[in-house]
């Protein structure tokens, strides 16, 4: 370790370099290739060549505006639902969990132990046309007779919500768990009602968890295509479905690369705007 002693200033760079090199070559460089590819034109049969083909971008926006909008609409809906649904549970575990906290958290992450695709196939079974859920919803007239849940936008949003729920619940729990209980007691001592104490003390203190949870849910949700593929129909396809089919089936690389880049740029812009509003340290730690 004498070397490190003589070159103390170099130590952090030595520790960082292997990992940073990996990220540079296999994350940053590929993004460059993605942009390069997105400005090419041609076809798989005659080869692609680079010629500043900005038209790929205009075509993507013009031709697939619906899919882009649907991606952000579904992801936004799923994120909002996940937040509303999992906040009470995160609260319950953090404040009432006692010595069962760790076990209860295990229940929260349990879905992650089953392969993503298998989980989604299970929802296909549950929501299938002759399943219990559809029969129940038909009985209470939420679904018209002969109507279906599978192959609708509702099923896609439900699937996305379920699949990314732990990403929301865990950060919520972490931030709620760290709240100093005496602050809430102080609010109540000062005659705040339970509800007011929650709104003015507990909720603001849990905001870092809300921010982290919404980002961790929204980002993967906006790029998802598995739920739309397995639970939806072509009318509920998202931009991920288009990118996937253009890359892996139609071999239309430039168009798919342009769409990927637009998707990433929109998400990055949203994240940075969000980060500016709440402070970056909370995001990157």
């Amino acid at each position, binding site marked *: 370790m004498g070397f490190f002693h003589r070159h103390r200033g170099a130590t952090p760079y030595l520790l960082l370099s292997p990992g*940073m090199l990996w990220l540079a070559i*296999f*994350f940053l460089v590929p993004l460059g290739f993605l942009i390069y590819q997105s400005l090419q034109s041609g076809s798989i049969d005659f080869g692609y060549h680079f010629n500043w083909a900005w038209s790929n971008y205009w075509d993507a926006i013009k031709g697939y505006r619906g899919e882009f909008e649907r991606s952000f609409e579904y992801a936004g809906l799923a994120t909002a639902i996940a937040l509303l649904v999992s906040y009470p*549970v995160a609260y319950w575990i953090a404040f009432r969990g006692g010595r069962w906290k760790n076990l209860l958290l295990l229940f*929260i992450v349990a879905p*992650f132990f089953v392969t993503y695709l298998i*989980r989604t196939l299970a929802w296909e079974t549950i929501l*299938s046309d002759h399943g219990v859920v559809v029969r129940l919803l038909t009985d209470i007239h939420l679904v018209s007779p002969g109507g279906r849940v599978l192959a609708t936008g509702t099923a896609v949003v439900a699937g996305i919500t379920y699949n990314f729920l732990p990403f929301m619940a865990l950060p919520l729990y972490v931030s709620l768990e760290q709240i100093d209980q005496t602050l809430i007691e102080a609010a109540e001592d000062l005659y705040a009602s339970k509800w007011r104490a929650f709104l003015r003390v507990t909720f603001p203190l849990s905001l870092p968890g809300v921010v982290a949870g919404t980002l961790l849910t929204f980002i993967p949700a906006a790029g998802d295509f598995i739920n739309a593929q397995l639970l939806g129909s072509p009318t509920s396809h998202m931009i991920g479905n288009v990118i996937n089919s253009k890359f892996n089936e139609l071999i239309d690389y430039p168009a798919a690369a342009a769409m*990927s880049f637009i998707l990433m740029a929109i998400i990055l812009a949203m994240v940075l705007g969000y980060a500016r509003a709440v402070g970056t340290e909370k*995001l990157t730690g």
Partner: protein
Amino acid sequence: MTSVAVAARGARRNPLRVTLAFVRRHVLTVYSLLFFAYLLLPIAVVAVFSFNHPTGRFNFVWKGFTWSNWSHWNAIPGIQSAVVLSLEIALIASVLATGLGTLMALALVRYGFRGRGTTNFIVFLPLSTPEIVLGASLLTLFLNISHVIPIGFWTILIAHVMFCVSFAVVTVKARLVGFDRHLEEAAMDLGANEWVTFKKVTLPLIAPAILAALLLCFAISVDDFVVTYFVAGSRVTFPIFVWGAARVATPPQINVIGIAFFVIAATAMLGNVFLQNRRAKQA
């Protein structure tokens, strides 16, 4: 209160009212239990249908009970090699990513240096990029260098290490932040050099975090579909196998392997929870 009095009180109360009163007092608890039921429902469905005896190609309708899917788990052509490939990749990728990530976390928490903010940002970026973009951009790179690295095993491995590194950094960093540096200084005061201090003090203290990162990376790698699908070429991992199957036929063996993975992961985590609880009691 005597038992007679209890019985008399119980008789006077309407059971429906008692239940309603209980629910009102424990709204949050009841809601949480319903939430857990919802979370676990699909897992239960997967487990039950792993014993199904489907008559058609799809495993969506219950036809009857059988053990044979479990005893013939590898009867479907290609399923065993898919599972083996997934495990191989996950094992190597999680070890590599945790190694790289631990070193980075040490540098980021221990040292003030120029470019720390940028480094944090670059580590954070892959986490905030949708998987489909990661997969698409890697594919455009690999297509251009396929004469150097043929698309297949190595490209899958490279991709998995890439998206696991950030998770490893975040996990180890979280543990290092609360680390008491006085312990290391004490070791140095007692004459240990930096390497011995690292081996005897630092490493044992951050070992749980390294193990956690290892398990997390393994789980993420084994489950990954999107990025893998882009960079796998003709190789088939287990999630890719499931994807291919979902279009033409879903044999119950898929459920068998899904549940087997689930049971192994859940058991490991349960064991960890009990260990933590016991340690907390002893402390």
